[in-house]
């Protein structure tokens, strides 16, 4: 129930019942004596659960109440306690949410791990341990994930001293030809952190048996640039908005900004004018096209192995989108275009020229897409490389909290633009694309079809904007200079980013900066499922699978 939504369908106001249509009393009954108390977050009710009963609580929510999507795990430190929050949703209806809050004492921050219930909790809890310092009992592999192994202290904890020096080791990755490996059947291959196929600075430790991948482990954190710390030290009104552009930097800037805009508008009860919503929707979908084109270009770079025509074509088309976005926002990549309560300025004058430019791009797009289909999807070699490789079953995908095009290519019909509507999407005519192929090929296909749908959305937005009465072009709501949301309000909200569900949790403390700002990155969860797809496949298929996941390391590591 965001403020960005039309008051339609007789849904209740946020203050009265945070999440729509969930019977929280029944849930409280279901959880029984695991629950200590209950608190109300803006988006859902939070059940405070005993630290040794986490698994019971989560598995009854999952098995009996149908909350099968562990969207995010937020860890934070209060003056008197640590707290882990498990944000649960349903894949069938993401508006049904519930939070499980697990407090632990400061002197012994240990709680039960959720990993046996939700596989995706593995990485989330490792991150919580790394950055905040909560330990999880029964966790299969609790070690640092983002920071180097030898790091001292937990940087998002309260008494962390940033001025203390640290020592970072530069250990050779294990040598696969060391003596004790000589007789073994397997061989360890390090891919990355500097490698053209990893799309950034990702390190994969792959154990090969012949040419088959026996085991693969991702080592991330080579681009952990403290996004959460940055956001926690910025003010709500202006200082946070530039950072989202840099999470998923594959030109998905406005989609990310919208995630922040949505959560902050919810927190501060800001209503966004309808005109601004249409402009937002249009610009966000332009970003999605640019991001998907980048995914397509680099995926083909992985498959064909060189800077060939397809990559160049994708770049050429991206240039066109970037020019449009530059005219609109003033920057090619780091748009910083949304503001709380609207957008920073209206579409550029002369409007006709701008719209003509957009229309020209849209008119050209079908030809371009046909061309891509000729070059890529109808190419037999490409089909041989991608069809039936990197298969991800929908059940596994749900276990890992996979979202976005990757989930939709596994047949999971889940798109927050439709299922948890925001912006202007619900008034427009477009389809959610799914495919049952579950393999690398379908993931590419879904992205290409989504480009077509985005084009449909943009076209309708342009129609609307062209006819909008000049007097009523309100681009921003009246928002105070400083925003001080009431203390201890907690909210978790997500939007459909280019890579999937991009969520943000904010806790306010009465000042003009957030006390805790947690980013739920879709790439982080998607990448975690890589072993499920790649193990048992050939090495080149591992590379193809990684490419088809379309991860952006800035968003994985944040």
């Amino acid at each position, binding site marked *: 129930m965001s403020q960005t939504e039309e008051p339609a369908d007789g849904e209740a106001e946020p203050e009265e019942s945070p999440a729509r249509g969930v019977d929280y009393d029944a849930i409280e009954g279901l959880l029984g004596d695991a629950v200590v108390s209950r608190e109300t977050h803006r988006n859902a009710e939070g059940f405070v659960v005993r630290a040794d009963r986490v698994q019971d609580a989560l598995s009854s929510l999952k098995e009996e109440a149908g909350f099968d999507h562990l969207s995010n795990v937020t860890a934070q430190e209060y003056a008197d306690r640590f707290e882990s929050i498990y944000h649960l949703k349903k894949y069938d209806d993401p508006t049904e949410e519930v939070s499980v809050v697990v407090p632990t004492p400061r002197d012994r921050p240990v709680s039960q791990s959720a990993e046996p219930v939700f596989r995706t909790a593995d990485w989330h809890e490792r991150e919580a341990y790394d950055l905040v310092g909560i330990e999880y009992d029964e966790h299969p592999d609790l070690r640092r994930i983002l920071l180097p192994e030898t790091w001292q202290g937990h940087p998002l904890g309260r008494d962390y001293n940033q001025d203390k020096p640290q020592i970072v080791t530069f250990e050779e990755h294990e040598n696969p030809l060391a003596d004790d490996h000589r007789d073994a059947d397997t061989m360890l291959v390090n891919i990355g*952190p500097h490698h053209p196929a990893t799309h950034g600075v990702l390190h994969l430790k792959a154990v090969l048996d012949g040419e088959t991948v026996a085991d693969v482990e991702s080592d991330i954190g080579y681009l952990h640039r403290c996004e959460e710390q940055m956001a926690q030290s910025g003010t709500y009104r202006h200082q946070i908005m530039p950072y989202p552009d840099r999470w998923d930097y594959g030109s998905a800037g406005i989609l990310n900004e919208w995630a922040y805009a949505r959560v902050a508008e919810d927190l501060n009860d800001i209503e966004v004018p309808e005109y601004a919503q249409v402009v937002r929707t249009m610009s966000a979908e332009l970003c999605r096209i640019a991001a998907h084109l980048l995914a397509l270009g680099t995926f083909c770079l992985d498959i064909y192995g060189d800077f060939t025509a397809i990559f160049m074509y994708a*770049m050429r088309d991206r240039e066109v989108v970037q020019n449009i976005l530059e005219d609109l926002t003033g920057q090619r990549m780091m748009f910083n275009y949304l503001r709380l309560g609207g957008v920073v300025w209206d579409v550029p004058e002369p409007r006709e020229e701008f719209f003509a430019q957009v229309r020209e791009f849209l008119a050209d797009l079908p030809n371009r897409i046909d061309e891509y289909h000729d070059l890529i999807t109808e190419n037999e070699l490409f089909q041989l490389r991608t069809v039936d490789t990197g298969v991800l079953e929908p059940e596994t995908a749900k276990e890992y909290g996979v979202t976005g095009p990757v989930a939709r290519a596994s047949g999971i019909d889940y798109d927050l633009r439709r299922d948890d509507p925001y912006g202007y999407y619900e008034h427009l005519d477009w389809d959610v694309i799914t495919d049952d192929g579950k393999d690398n090929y379908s993931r590419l296909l879904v992205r290409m079809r989504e480009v077509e749908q985005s084009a449909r959305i943009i076209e309708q937005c342009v129609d609307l904007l062209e006819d909008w009465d000049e007097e009523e072009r309100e681009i921003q709501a009246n928002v105070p200079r400083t925003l001080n949301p009431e203390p201890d309000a907690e909210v978790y909200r997500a939007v459909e980013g280019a890579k999937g569900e991009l969520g943000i949790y904010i806790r306010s403390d009465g000042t003009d900066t957030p006390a805790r700002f947690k980013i739920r990155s879709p790439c982080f969860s998607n990448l975690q499922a890589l072993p499920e797809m790649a193990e048992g496949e050939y090495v080149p298929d591992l590379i193809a699978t990684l490419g088809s996941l379309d991860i952006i390391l800035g968003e994985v590591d944040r």
Partner: protein
Amino acid sequence: MSREKPRDDIIDTTAPQTKTREDRMSEVDSRFNSTLREAFGSTPFILTKFDSFMNWVRGSSMFMLQFGIACCSIEMMHTYAVKHDLDRFGSGVPRASPRQADVMIVPGTIVSKFAPRMKRVYDQMPEPKFVVNMGSCSTSGGPFQQGYNVVKGTEEVIPVDIHIPGCPPRPEALVYGIAKLQERVRNGETSPVTVKPYELEQFGDLETDELVEKLADDIDEESLVMRYNWADSP
């Protein structure tokens, strides 16, 4: 193709030789008209210092390291690709292996975990090598300078020749930066090599302090380590 007469040139006249010589001395035959030819003039010799020649060669054919770190690398890809096409300027073939590269463009934020790796990649490049800093992150830490994990600029770790400001710099800016680098290389200018705050050392060689003592059990004496110091770096 038999001739009725034997070819006249060798037998009874010296005209062809004279003609050739005259050609050489006067106008350049249009088929060979090139700037190089013009520079050579009538003689097949040029006089230059071997050093200058090498610098000219070096600056005119630079292989870039295909090295993507963060957001700036997307703009770097655009610079390599159609429209901006860095290759036009004699410097644009991205090489995947550092051992084949001359220039390293550093397009992104360097964090503590990556700094030693970047140093290793730099060390693997053959001499002479050049570094171009792309974007404010690699210049100073950029928007993330306050981050607990961020190295405040590439220059803390490796020597840098050119800084290109921007977040991200436009492709045109990158092209300009590379052109400037080529100019410097042609003029034989290099950046002074100074000692960097972040150096790889053996753990055993570190001065013992509280932190080293604490880590003594975890880290092998001989492993290479890098000190990360957020507060004391500029």
